[in-house]
């Protein structure tokens, strides 16, 4: 072996630094050559870059967490009040605890949608939030961080890249940190918090957890049940796309039972779809306008040869009488 392990580490450190700062094409060629020149080089390099990754990853979280959450020992009551402050007074109280820097320039803004409504909000940093039906978010931007709280429903975030200001969405006790990406967070009644990642990578973590964040890449989803660990669940691209059809004001079903479709529509409209139990298991496939349950029922009726009856704020689907 020509060079000592010490020298190899020094070369690796130098390459990791240079690569972090950006290589010229010529340097890139030299780097590739160096990587192959010795069987220790790749490993030494990965460790050198790994050092940077460890710092970025854990220091970033240390800061996010300490800036948005109180120390572990506070009571649940204090914790609840401190996060995004239940009131202005709570905000000041929090400022007292953590120093004023984070809070003094922050302003809270609330955006909400009614049933059947989809709303696109351009945020101050160029990120876009799209709210699905009956959803509410609270936006709080500071110099250091971009905090969003999903109060109810479902929202899609297209996040503008900015390493210096982490973009963190909180839904119940789940924190979702974006690493420059497009993803949805949903929090629906009787369902666990769910995150769908369309592009890029997000990291999920319980607000008070000490375990490592779960990293979830594009075309996957993560589920955060209230009584179990956060886990990644694979999802295929076509299903992901269907799940995001609401973005364009549509609901997409693939072999969905009428029963399930009806309960999905209940999120979008006060007009109730009532499915006769005898046909509740009949399935439907297709894309339908999300805030038009009557239109959906008529389509379903035509497709499956069923009878449809509209009575005020209720639409019934049942078997056609012979």
């Amino acid at each position, binding site marked *: 072996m020509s060079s000592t*392990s010490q020298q190899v580490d020094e070369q690796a*450190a130098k390459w990791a630094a240079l690569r972090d700062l950006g290589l010229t094409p010529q340097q890139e060629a030299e780097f590739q050559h160096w990587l192959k020149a010795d069987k220790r080089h790749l490993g030494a390099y990965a460790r050198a870059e790994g050092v940077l990754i460890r710092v970025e990853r854990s220091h970033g979280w240390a800061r996010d967490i300490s800036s948005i959450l109180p120390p572990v020992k506070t009571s649940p009551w204090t914790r609840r009040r401190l996060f995004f402050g239940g009131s202005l007074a709570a905000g000041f109280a929090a400022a007292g605890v953590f120093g004023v820097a984070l809070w003094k320039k922050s302003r809270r803004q609330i955006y909400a949608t009614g049933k059947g409504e989809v709303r696109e909000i351009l945020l101050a940093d160029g990120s876009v939030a799209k709210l699905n039906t009956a959803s509410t978010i609270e936006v709080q931007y500071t110099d250091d961080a971009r905090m969003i709280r999903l109060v109810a429903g479902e929202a899609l975030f297209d996040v503008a890249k900015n390493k210096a200001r982490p973009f963190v969405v909180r839904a119940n006790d789940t924190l979702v940190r974006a690493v420059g990406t497009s993803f949805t967070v949903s929090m629906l009644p009787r369902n666990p918090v769910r995150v769908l990642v369309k592009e890029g990578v997000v990291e999920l973590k319980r607000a008070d957890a000490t375990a490592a964040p779960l990293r979830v890449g594009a075309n996957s989803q993560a589920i955060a049940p209230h009584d179990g660990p956060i886990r990644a669940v694979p999802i295929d691209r076509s299903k992901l796309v269907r799940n995001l059809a609401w973005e364009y004001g549509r609901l997409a079903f693939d072999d969905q039972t009428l029963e399930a479709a009806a309960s999905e529509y209940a999120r979008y409209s006060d007009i109730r779809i009532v499915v006769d139990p005898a046909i509740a298991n009949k399935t439907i496939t297709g894309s339908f306008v999300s805030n038009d349950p009557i239109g959906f029922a008529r389509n379903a009726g035509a497709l499956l040869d069923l009878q449809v009856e509209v009575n005020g704020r209720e639409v019934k689907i049942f078997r056609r009488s012979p």
Partner: protein
Amino acid sequence: MSDDLSDRSRWLAINVLPHEALIRSKLNDIRSYNLDIEDVIQETYTRMLSVPSLETIRHPKQYAVKTAKAIIIDHVRHARVVSIASAGRSDTVDVPERSATAEERLEFQEEVAAVEEALAALPEKCRMTLLLRRVEGLPQKEVAHRLGISEKMVERHMTDSIKHLIKLFGRGRKTRVQTSNRAFEIGGSDVVDKPTG
């Protein structure tokens, strides 16, 4: 930077590097072979990262120890180097642990503490450069401007920070190694740890 090499470095940073001190402690018998443990660690990482798919490595820590031991044996036998392709077959070294409870995951809190501790041990300029660049994500020029140093010095401080941290992390934290060690024994006892040739 999201190329394959960086993805692999990230995998290493998350799954293996926090345990480096522990892995090192498992290779104590190396001294009798007159080998440099640092060479072995570097080569171990090269071999691990040369596996076609890192996802097939289900127990990175154990895998690292076993790979390192295999490398030691190779050197002792004067068998030059096993080709990367054959060394990378995960079925030969990645044995499942005996019980699911033995799956010992380093608490992220400890990782945060380890990183903070190491950062605190860096020279001030190095630490500032590293944080501005890597955590704040500022361009080289801006880092230089903020610290009142030349861009060349930014590069120097970055390099020095990495060098220091490789050493600091490699040494590990005293409190952690002890506790991790016990859980580790459970899965790692069927290692071939004596050269046969």
